[in-house]
């Protein structure tokens, strides 16, 4: 099964274009791809348990692996994460790149 890493750097509170990227993740899963969404920079602001981001919850329920950059989380004092979001070191990007997974940045 082809695999993708989608890196999201924007947060959904400031940029409504994040909706497009979440939809792309959903569409890639529907097309039988394995998708990991890595939240970096301000995108991790969507990762708190009480953050109102239903689209992110839907992605998790739909089978997208959602990770949040540990450095960005620490920088913003985010400790607890929403169910289905896991903290990850930036090395995860290299994991995907070295494995040949298509990797995009938004």
């Amino acid at each position: 099964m082809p695999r993708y890493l989608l890196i999201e750097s924007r947060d959904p509170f400031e940029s409504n274009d994040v909706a497009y990227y979440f939809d792309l993740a959903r569409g890639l899963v529907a097309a039988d791809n394995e998708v990991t969404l890595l939240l970096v920079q301000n995108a991790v602001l969507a990762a708190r348990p009480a953050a109102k981001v239903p689209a992110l919850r839907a992605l998790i329920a739909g089978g997208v692996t959602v990770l949040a950059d540990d450095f960005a989380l620490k920088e913003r004092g985010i400790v607890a994460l929403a169910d289905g979001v896991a903290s990850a070191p930036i090395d995860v990007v290299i994991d995907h790149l070295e494995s040949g997974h298509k990797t995009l940045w938004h």
Partner: protein
Amino acid sequence: MAKKTLNIVESAYRAVMEEQDDTILWLMAAMQGAGAAHTVVLRGNAVNYAVAGQGAPGLTVGRWKQTQAPRMDRDVLDLVEKRKIPVLVIQEDLAVRGIQKSEVLAEVELIGIESLPALMAEFEIVSHW
């Protein structure tokens, strides 16, 4: 044979007057000249690049006057006609911006956003600009 590369371009009108080009479309044209096999998808605000008849006059600051003002529709046509780079445009992004199909260059191909995953599978490299 060069790797087939899909370039999803969403950045629009960023530094185009200063650079007298969209720097991503310019890069695609330059790389094509070096033997690349690019396809461009315009999405988000970049779909406006496909609107025919656009272009501001050159910038004037004091006595300095720009003489080579860019026109994005012309650059899109250049990609398609001269560089043989297919340019696809996300039709939902046109519609939400109130751009009628009649305003869009005939030389671009309109595609639905739902077709993007299948399209991405056809290319060895997919980049987001």
